[in-house]
């Protein structure tokens, strides 16, 4: 807690004192040799240190993809775990170069905080988790429930909206730390735990007895989770955004980390352009010609990242659903490289 106050105060103080121009993130990153990436303090499937203390997850893989595009080295990343209430201060103070931290893209954040969202890495929605023995099957039955929520999130606002709109009273119990929220729910302080549905699945996978808890089917909000960069540095914004597009385009073109070398010899002009065999699209980003090749080679395409971290064969067991490619009826779509 003290730490948090210190962090916020420091960020505020840095806002007071810092005179460094915010433009030129790419130069700064190249000069120091790594990307400083803001991630969650630990959400399975998105960003969590594994048994060997290496960060892993969907958000982490995005950071690795970005580092691959710049340095051809997925490990040229340093991670800063941030609470939801610290994240934007850490961004504006320049403590991190980018935020890949299950952050919901909203209008006020996009327009008022001096941030830009690069593209939706994960289409999510807010859900509810309850104990199985409570017999609850729909959020409409939650009248009077105590609800555990993390502070400073869209979750907090959505819950207020939802319960007011449905004329239900509820009792919000909010904590700064996500771990505290989950612990309070497990200790029985709350009847309900609410956050993004993916986050519920992630937390449940860590419970001693996941089958004792159910995630209700109903989703009450749109939560497009997107990486964030500072506003006013278009070069860096373009790199971050096209890293995401490269991941999606690679999947659409059937390029995987396994076949990417083979694909270099492909006749498909789209594949040639993406992998830098034809034309030089990296130059306009300030990167090398084979930037996208490096991404796919080191990290894989969007589908690989999804399946590896949150897909059906992981503890989270999420279906692609709306996160499938547009060609498969999903929402993941990227503009063409030409």
């Amino acid at each position, binding site marked *: *807690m*003290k730490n*948090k*106050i210190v962090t*916020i*105060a420091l*960020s*505020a103080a840095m*806002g*007071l*004192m*810092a*005179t460094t*121009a*915010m433009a030129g993130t790419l130069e700064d990153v190249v000069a120091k040799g790594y990307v400083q990436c803001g991630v969650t303090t630990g959400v399975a499937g998105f960003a969590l240190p594994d048994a060997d203390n290496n960060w892993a997850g969907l958000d982490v893989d995005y950071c690795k993809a970005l580092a691959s595009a710049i340095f051809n080295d997925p490990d040229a990343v340093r991670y800063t775990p941030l609470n*939801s*209430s610290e994240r*934007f*201060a850490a961004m*504006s103070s320049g403590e991190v170069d980018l935020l890949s931290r299950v952050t919901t893209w909203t209008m*006020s*954040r996009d*327009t*008022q*905080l*001096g941030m830009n969202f690069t593209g939706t890495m994960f289409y999510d929605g807010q859900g509810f988790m309850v104990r199985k023995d409570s017999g609850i099957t729909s959020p409409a039955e*939650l*009248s*009077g*429930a*105590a609800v555990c929520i993390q*502070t*400073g*999130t869209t979750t*907090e*606002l959505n*819950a*207020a*909206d939802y*319960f*007011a709109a449905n004329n239900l009273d*509820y*009792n*919000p*119990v*909010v*904590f*700064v*730390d996500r771990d*505290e929220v989950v612990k*309070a729910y497990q*200790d*029985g*302080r709350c*009847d309900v735990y609410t956050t993004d549905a993916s986050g519920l699945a992630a937390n449940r996978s860590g419970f001693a007895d996941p089958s004792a808890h159910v995630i209700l089917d109903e989703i009450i909000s749109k939560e497009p989770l997107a990486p964030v960069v*500072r*506003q*006013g540095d278009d070069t860096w914004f373009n790199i971050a955004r096209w890293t995401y597009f490269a991941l999606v385009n690679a999947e659409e073109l059937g390029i995987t980390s396994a076949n990417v070398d083979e694909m270099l010899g492909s006749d498909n002009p789209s594949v040639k352009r993406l992998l830098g065999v034809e034309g030089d699209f990296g130059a306009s980003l300030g990167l090398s010609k084979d930037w996208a090749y490096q991404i796919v080679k080191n990290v894989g395409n969007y589908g690989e990242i999804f399946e590896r971290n949150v897909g059906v064969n992981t503890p989270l067991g999420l279906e692609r659903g709306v996160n499938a490619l547009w060609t498969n009826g999903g929402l993941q779509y990227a503009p063409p490289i030409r």
Partner: protein
Amino acid sequence: MADLRNNHNLAPKPSFFNDPKIRSIFYQLVVMAVIIAFVYVVATNTAANLAAQNKSTGFDFFLQPASFDINFTLIPFDRTSYYWEAFVVGMLNTLLVSVIGVIFATLLGFMLGIARLSNNWIIAKLAMVYVEIIRNIPLLLQLFFWYTVVLKAMPGVKNSFEWFGGFVLNNRGFSFPKPMPDETFNLVFIAFFIAVIGAFALKYWARKRLEQTGNRFPVFWASIGLLIAFPVVVWLISGANLAFETPELKGFNYKGGLTLPSEFLALVFGLIIYTTAFIAEIVRSGIVAVDKGQTEAAQSLGLKDGDRLRLVIIPQAMRVIIPPLTSQFLNLTKNSSLAAAIGYPDLVSVFMQTTLNQTGRAVEIVFITMMVYLTLSLITSVFMNWYNARVAMVER
């Protein structure tokens, strides 16, 4: 003659540049200029940097709807309330915890401090063990500990402890019946007010009587009796109208009545336990600082133990106790900002966490929050300094 003496008192006049008065004014002006320049640079730099970060700035967010909910408020609040109302809610919650904490920590601290000096070996040692354990463990850990205790040791909603059909304790908090006073109940408030005046009158009369006759009158117990009995009698005469809304188990939770959430209980409990240890030490040192001769003098006058403490020792000890006691009051108020860690909606949690995040006005909000704590502390200090001046040694 007179002229000559005056000349003797005059110091030789130094040159303008060597005049210590002028030099001191000059240095003070330089220091002031440096401070003003520093503040100016910081302020303009902040404004410029915030603009460069494309951030919205200003205090206009106060008038925008907050659109979040708070589970423990002293004033009505819901998602349509404004941010300034959220600010007030947070501030009142901080004040509530601080005031309750200060009152109980002072009472317990005095008892414990006196207990440490007790001739009873067990009591003195128990008090010592308490003080040494509590004040050597970080407060944040203690708060987490108490919060965990509240959540783990208390039963769930379905197995709540229930007493007298209206007092309910479970891991969600402590619920108790809410009095629903109707109009006739105003008479009881008036009666209580009259009883307060009566108690003061009684004190005045008892003092006069003591001075005239030397007979003592038990003012304290008589006043307590008056304060309780008179309103009760009025209440009975007015028809004994007072309905209570008792908490009842409905669905998930107890509804109705008043509820103190577990976060509040854990925070208040933790702060009191912690601060009590420090106040006990301050009280002990204050008492020890009173010369032993005072005790002996009081004994030789034939004062009873309680009177000796109350009339001779404590008033003198107070002069030593009050200044550090003030610091403890300030510490308790500031420590209450740890509330956010255990989910109690105090000023830091509601304003510096939630509001800051939803509006993104970090500089403004951190500044206001600091100003609030500063103001609270200064007010406490002013009051305690006034009180200190009142009890300070009057030199005769």
